[in-house]
């Protein structure tokens, strides 16, 4: 089966969709991942590879790209509705420097 997601680093907890994924579609990286997409996920967007708790770091490229703002389940779409960055947050008092 041809892959439909890309995992950049082995420590990543999200993968990137390289085709539009439909709800229920099985994620396939270099091997079948045993996870189903819980909703439709557009090309280029991220999908969780494991459960991520609220406040936990989301890892891509082997580095943190932000934190989960709510609990995320494996197979869920990960984007601005449940992930936020910590850098350049002038809106937060005493934000990251």
């Amino acid at each position, binding site marked *: 089966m041809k892959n439909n997601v890309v995992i950049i680093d082995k420590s990543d907890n999200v993968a990137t969709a390289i085709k539009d994924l439909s709800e229920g579609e099985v994620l396939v990286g270099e091997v079948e991942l045993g996870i189903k997409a819980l909703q439709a996920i557009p090309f280029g967007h991220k999908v969780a590879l494991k459960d991520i708790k609220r406040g936990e770091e989301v890892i891509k490229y082997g580095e943190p790209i932000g934190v989960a703002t709510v609990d995320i389940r494996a197979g869920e779409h990960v984007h*601005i509705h449940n992930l936020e960055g910590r850098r*350049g947050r*002038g809106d937060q008092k005493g934000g990251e420097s």
Partner: protein
Amino acid sequence: MSELLGYWRPDGQVGIRNHLAIISSVVCANRGTELIAEAVPGAVPIIHQHGCAQIGADMEMVFRTLEGTGKNPNVGAALVVGLGCESVDAETLASRIAESEKPVDFVSIQKSGGTLRAIEEGIRKAKNMAQLLWKNEREPFGWDKLILGTECGGSDTTSGLAANPATGRVADRVVELGGTVILSETTEIIGAEHVMARRAATPELAEKFLELIDQVEKRYMRLGVDFRGGNPAPGNIKGGLTTLEEKSLGAIHKAGTSIFHELLDYAQRPTKKGWL
């Protein structure tokens, strides 16, 4: 590998292009600059929103940027167009560019006696320069003379997966061959700076680099606004990029894997080779 061909400039730099640059020294001279460029085939207008009511470091930055544009080896000749009363005055700018020993001249709208006369004078001068440029021929040059600048635009998640890593491979190869590659867009390093700092040529450079990124971020924080929506931009977000860190981690891929040797301020000339 086939040899590189380019235009050797009097100051020893080599250009890939042979542009005739019509450079506006001040926003009021923009229209005149455009009209002169339109009348001369191959001329490139350089216009901007600065040049007046500026003092100190602000003014010097505009001078440096326009001077750098004129001195760029891709520019074969330059004509500066000013109004006559501006802070970044055309004559001074032209003389600074002339340090490169390429053909440079200027027109001042007020000195010429008005816009129409200045445009006429500018077109005559530009046509003479264009004829000089037609005589330039491309000749072989070595990789040590090549400077490659990298930029991105319209980033989405494929940028960090495909376009930027591909550019990074080219960057590595150019550096290996003795050329220079410049990575820019400082805000899009925020979130990835620790990855890049490991590749500084010296610990002092790494420290200076981290401090610089910190300052850039603090400057934006002082505005009291949330970066998001600005960077990543709405188009980036639609394309799947969620956070600034994610964008930066993808963006730095276009710099390849070499170590970097110099940190350049805006409009500063490189003094070293390799990755900067």
